[in-house]
């Protein structure tokens, strides 16, 4: 069952621009050159209950606009969207009581006072009963390991500790959908791992997450489905594995041999880097040459000392998708 349904969403807005010269600045005080920005050009997708979806795109692709529409902050120019059965921008108040959001770059905590005071403020805003609030806070703070920290002023906490408290802020009212915007930005490895484990745990409990990030490790470790938009259009919407093989079923192979490696003369094999004549990295299109054939040919031509075979990093695929813009056909 779809929890979120988006159909032909279009958002166009007007902004202004000017040059940086003195004359242009002076002129802009009186008259500004307006131009239309087509942030979304009719995107459509569905998201099911309990999903963990990576929502990706280069800067300016329309991700934030989509998320703002789905959180009821912005009205679209045309198109339809429902989430939890509500129209987010028309039934904002009732809808947002059921969603949460974590922004890596916009804190919801009150800077000068301890996070506990911010949590209590959220208790009042969401009208959470005392008993439910205490039990939920106890459970979340225990999971994230911040029970001892939440009585210290927020400004004294590390970024990782603050981000854990941001998650508590977002989860206290037991939202069914949580929007995550760069939730691990700037965090160290341990803090990232802890946040990712928390997201997975909450997702296992049935919370739907929509994750916007430029950290592809977040996507690889968390998302089961990926939606990519570019220039306001949807360019990919499928599972993570389909994303990896989007430009063909390819492997990255590093070959280390006892002697110089001669040309292997295989179709679909491209050299990507060369540390020395004996140490070469390739990208192999398995649709054109099988792995068995590659290994056999390498053994024929030289003596393999060591070899590693890896998936193509998702980063490369995403980069190509970003560059390809809206000219790509939509994935089935």
């Amino acid at each position, binding site marked *: 069952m779809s929890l979120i349904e988006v159909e032909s969403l279009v958002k166009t807005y007007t902004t202004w621009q000017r040059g940086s010269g003195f004359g242009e600045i002076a002129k802009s005080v009186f008259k500004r050159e307006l131009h239309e920005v087509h942030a979304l050009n009719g995107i459509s997708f569905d998201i099911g209950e309990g999903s963990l979806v990576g929502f990706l795109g280069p800067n300016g692709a329309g991700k934030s606009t989509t998320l703002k529409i789905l*959180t009821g*902050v912005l009205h679209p120019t045309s198109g339809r969207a429902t989430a939890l059965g509500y129209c987010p921008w028309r039934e904002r108040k009732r809808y947002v009581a059921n969603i949460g959001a974590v922004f890596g770059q916009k804190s919801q905590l009150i800077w000068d*006072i301890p996070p506990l005071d911010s949590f209590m403020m959220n208790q009042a805003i969401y009208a959470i009963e005392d008993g439910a609030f205490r039990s939920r806070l106890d459970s979340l703070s225990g999971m994230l390991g911040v029970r001892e920290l939440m009585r210290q002023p927020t400004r004294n906490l590390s970024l990782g500790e603050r981000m854990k408290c941001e998650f508590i802020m977002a989860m206290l009212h037991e939202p069914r959908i949580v929007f995550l915007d760069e939730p691990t930005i700037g965090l160290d490895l341990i803090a990232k791992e802890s946040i990712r484990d928390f997201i997975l745990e909450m997702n296992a409990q049935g919370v739907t997450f929509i994750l916007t990030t430029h950290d592809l490790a977040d996507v690889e470790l968390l998302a089961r489905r990926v939606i990519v938009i570019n220039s306001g259009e949807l360019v990919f919407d499928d599972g993570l594995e389909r994303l990896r093989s989007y430009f063909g079923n390819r492997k990255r192979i590093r070959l280390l041999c006892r002697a110089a490696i001669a040309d292997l003369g295989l179709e679909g094999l491209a050299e990507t880097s060369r540390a020395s004549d004996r140490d070469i990295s390739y990208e192999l299109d398995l649709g054109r040459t099988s792995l068995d054939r590659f290994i056999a040919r390498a053994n024929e031509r030289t003596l393999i000392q060591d070899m590693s075979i890896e998936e193509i990093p998702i980063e490369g695929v995403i980069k190509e998708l970003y560059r390809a813009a809206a000219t790509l056909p939509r994935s089935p």
Partner: protein
Amino acid sequence: MGSARSMLMLFSRAARGSMAKAAAYRGDFIVGLVVALLFEFLTPLATILIYRSSAMTGFPGWKMEEVLVLQAVFLISRGIAFPLFFGLVWVVFESVREGRFELILLRPRSPLLVALSQGLDMPGFVRLLGGLALLLWSAGRMGGIQARSILPFLLMLGLSALTLFSCALFMAGSLFVWVGNSRVSELLDSILLFAQYPGSIFSSGLQLVLAAVVPVSMVALFPAEVLLGRPDALVLPGIGASLAFFALGLGFWNFMRGKYAGAGG
């Protein structure tokens, strides 16, 4: 949970948060308070100097103590309205400029209510003390205030706070389009200059504008006149104007808030 109880809880938590913030920066709070009290007494001090100077005749038709009551009412009205309503202006100023207003829109409450609760300035109520002290001193010198004037005065004081709230709504609303314009407070200060003096020093046309168009006279002049038992003919149109001004302010806020599109993502 009933909505009234829920709203009370929201404001009590906001009040606690506001006190906690002030406690975190005690030095800033104390210095700010002393400076504010000193500045607030400048106008009453000028009034005393005007009346004590043999070269000046004071304000036509008003005794010095009556003018001081008017200025005390102004301080009391500000002392109530500024901590309650004007934090809204700075919450909107900062959150719109930094593209964080969506955090307010993500709450299942009226954005106005959430922004007001975030801007609540509990320690700011201390400024009320200056106005109350001036009122007691001036009223004492006049031989007291008639008991029957107190209830109508309190009602007028409520309208005065409502008028200032309306100003806050216009200021905050304008910031959704006029992003980062810190001059809105100077605009208000200029308008409020007209609220601190008896109407008799203005032309009759201007008195009408200040009563029935932009009800600045409702801020202090009309409540003070009611307290002193000498309301003028413009008080009734002033009441209507202040209610209309509030309705306009609320409409303006809602209209401008609808224009919020956020900053780049």
